[in-house]
């Protein structure tokens, strides 16, 4: 690795972790995980990839103490996965959402919140924020046994976040989710990483992994076949791409000429919009037109307590008592402030290092890399939110309501009344 200049601890570390499933007679049958050495740094989004049956889930289960390793050891946040102190800092979303069927969504979250011993006020606040975030507020009183797979997945995600975890372990987080939900999870992962949290996710949906992960490891047959920074692995250093606004044909010809002078080949096309962006744009437009659907409401909101830059519970509690609409605008991140409070984050050191050595070439400084990704978020999803909150504050100040807010309220009401299958 290129970053072992500081003696930082790993958020997750395994030492020749091995799991052999043997048959009844004790004969080794399958090497599910074979001599795995995995290191996930703090404040890193790490993707564990691999085809079905490559040992991803088995690895996660061993990390969490649900399975005992046949050989080797796994450290998670510097301790054992069955230690309750460690557990209180972990959020886990299993490969499917296994929920208690007779509890409704709110009760489910309340149950998990109680397991963490969260104080009532904080718990209530977080539950509402999470329900809002996963778009299940309208169906919060329905037993989760009647939920569709995607809705159950959303509750599963909400329960993993209720303790505002330092380490989030997600097993196939986007299965069963619509593109908006998928986008939202990806945004959430990035936001959490910004706040210095660590995310370990395993998936075989490569597009998702590519969008959010800093580093990945590809497993096959329980062994790591390849690992490293996503950028390093994927960047084609022998090519360059230039994106411009719509410019005249004459200008293009000039550019082509320039490139030909360099003895290089060039191709000029209009860039394609990503299907995901297009889809979200379409749905957002439909939502504006009062179209109501039953089941989960896809929002692009992310729970305030997850994006807020302070981790002090006192401030959280103070904010609970404040009216929701005034609570917060999506604020500009001030990452430097968080660093001392949070677990050690590598960026400052890396930056310093690259400045000192003067060569930023071998590994891109992470903050720059991350910023790039943030800008790839669809503008369509972010802008309306800011606008709405702005408007609602404006309304409070002026005492009048805009047409858009009325629309929103109406659609929420009709969704609350309608409880079909999602």
């Amino acid at each position, binding site marked *: 690795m290129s970053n072992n200049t500081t003696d930082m601890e790993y958020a997750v570390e395994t030492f020749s972790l091995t799991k052999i*499933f043997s048959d009844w007679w004790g004969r080794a049958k*399958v090497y*599910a995980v074979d001599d795995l050495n995995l290191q996930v740094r703090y404040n890193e989004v790490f993707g564990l990839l691999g085809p079905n*049956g490559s*040992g991803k*889930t*088995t690895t996660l*289960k061993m990390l*969490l*103490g*649900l*399975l*005992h390793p046949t050989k080797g050891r796994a450290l998670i946040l510097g301790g054992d*996965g*069955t230690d*309750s*102190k460690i*557990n*209180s800092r*972990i959020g*886990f979303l*299993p490969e*499917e959402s*296994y*929920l*208690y069927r007779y509890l409704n969504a709110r009760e489910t979250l309340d149950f*998990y919140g109680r*397991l*963490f*011993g969260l104080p009532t006020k904080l718990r209530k606040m977080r539950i509402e924020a999470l329900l809002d975030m996963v778009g299940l507020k309208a169906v919060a009183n329905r037993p989760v046994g009647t939920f569709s797979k995607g809705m159950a997945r959303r509750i*599963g995600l909400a*329960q*993993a976040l209720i*303790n505002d975890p330092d380490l989030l372990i997600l097993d196939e987080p986007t299965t069963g989710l619509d593109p908006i939900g998928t986008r939202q999870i990806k945004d959430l992962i990035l936001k959490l990483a910004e706040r210095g949290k660590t995310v370990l996710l395993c998936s075989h949906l490569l597009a998702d992994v590519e969008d959010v992960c800093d580093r990945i490891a590809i497993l096959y047959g329980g062994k790591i076949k390849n690992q490293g920074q996503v950028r390093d692995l994927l960047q084609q250093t022998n090519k360059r791409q230039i994106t411009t606004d719509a410019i005249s044909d004459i200008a293009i010809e000039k550019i082509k000429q320039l490139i030909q002078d360099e003895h290089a080949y060039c191709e000029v096309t209009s860039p394609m919009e990503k299907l995901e962006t297009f889809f979200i744009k379409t749905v957002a437009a439909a939502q504006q037109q009062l179209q109501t659907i039953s089941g989960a409401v896809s929002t692009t909101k992310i729970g305030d307590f997850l994006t807020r830059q302070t981790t002090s519970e006192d401030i959280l509690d103070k904010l609970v008592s404040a009216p929701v609409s005034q609570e917060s605008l999506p604020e500009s991140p001030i990452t430097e402030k968080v660093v001392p409070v949070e677990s050690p984050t590598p960026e400052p050191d890396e930056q310093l290092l690259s400045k000192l050595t003067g060569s930023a070439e071998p590994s891109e400084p992470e903050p720059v890399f991350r910023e790039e990704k943030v800008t790839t978020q669809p503008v369509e999803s972010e802008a309306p939110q800011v606008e709405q909150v702005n408007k609602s504050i404006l309304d409070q100040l002026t005492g009048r309501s805009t047409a858009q807010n009325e629309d929103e309220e109406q659609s929420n009401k009709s969704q609350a009344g309608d409880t079909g299958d999602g």
Partner: protein
Amino acid sequence: MKVAAVFLILLLVLLPVLGFSATGDGTLKGRLQTFVSYGLSLTSILLCLLTIIISIYSVTSDIEQRQIYTVITKPIRRFQFLLGKLLGVVLLDVILLSLFAAIIYTITIYTPQFFNATETECIQANNEFFTARAALNVPAVDVSQEVKERYEQLERSRELPEDISYKEIIAGLTAQQQLAKRAADVGQVLVWEFNNVQPLDQSMFIKFKYDVAVNPPDMQVYGRWFAGDYQYIRYGTESKTPVYDRIHKHSVRNFHEIEIPAEVIPEHGHLAVAFQNAPLNNTVIIFPPDGIEVLYKSDTFTGNFIRAVLLILSRLIFLACLGILASTFLSFPVAILLCLFLFATASFSGFVIESFSYLSVNIGIIYSYTIKWIVQLLPQFDKYNPTKFLVPARLLSWSLLARCVAVMVCIKAFLLLLAALVIFSYREIAKIIV
């Protein structure tokens, strides 16, 4: 859990129906005895089954449907998970048991009014059912000295049979001598003494059964009964308290009770009861080994009923622990099967223990070190059956209850729970999926 609802409705319907349909021998007392006996037994058995099913299901379904993945990875220790399940089951048991016990109690209390029982029936029910009577038994008389003398006498006169072992001769002689102590020839008097007789009520009871050598024509015999200060009856000294002295006529080979005013009991509580085979009879009267008891009220029916219900609760707690243990290493159907088998064995433990000791006479040592211990580990539900106390209105004392709870809950159930916690702490929670 729909099974809980089914059991609940079943009991809610069955209990009042039982209240009407249970008639017993036609008397009010018989009706009450039948109702309490069937009602409590039914409640007990249904709650036992429910406890087994729920305690097993609550753990195995969490494991099989994998809800445990998200629960056990929260800051919850595994023993907390199991204890939580146990607590839930026990709480449910307490609620259901108190509900049904309250129903049974209410129906029992209002039965006399509801059926417009006559006054004599009410008095009988009050004396023999709505009470908790302590019973004083007569211990077997020590006859070893006489047996020894008789044996030596036979030996001297060379009348000992050759083909019978010493042990068997002694056993035969002992039985003979003890029978002689319980037999009263015509005109002969038998005296029994009882210590610490302290009735709560105005009267006490002598419960007895006659066996006879020759059947009297109408199957009835006369007996003259005395009760009072033992010094007066034994030695004829002056008695400060009155002495009971009356002749009764009773049928043979049935249990009877005669009521005696409590004022005959001397202050020091040392009472003597004497029986004279009335000269009118033409037969020897023998009291069987359990043929005579002195009964007196020492607590209320309510107190006894509450203790009986607590007895059932201790049984349920044991079964809940058993179910939790089974579910920590077995799947649902196997665990159910095992627990039901153990429950059945425990319900007939007396029979099981007896038949084992009978069958294993020839393999004595092996038996006494293996099966005997295993069988002893099982709880003995039949030995501490609450209806055994409530139906004859026997006192189920706090000390007996405490002993039973100590053995069944504090030792046996605790051991089961401990085993469950150890197994559960070290097992793999997740299923093997590759």
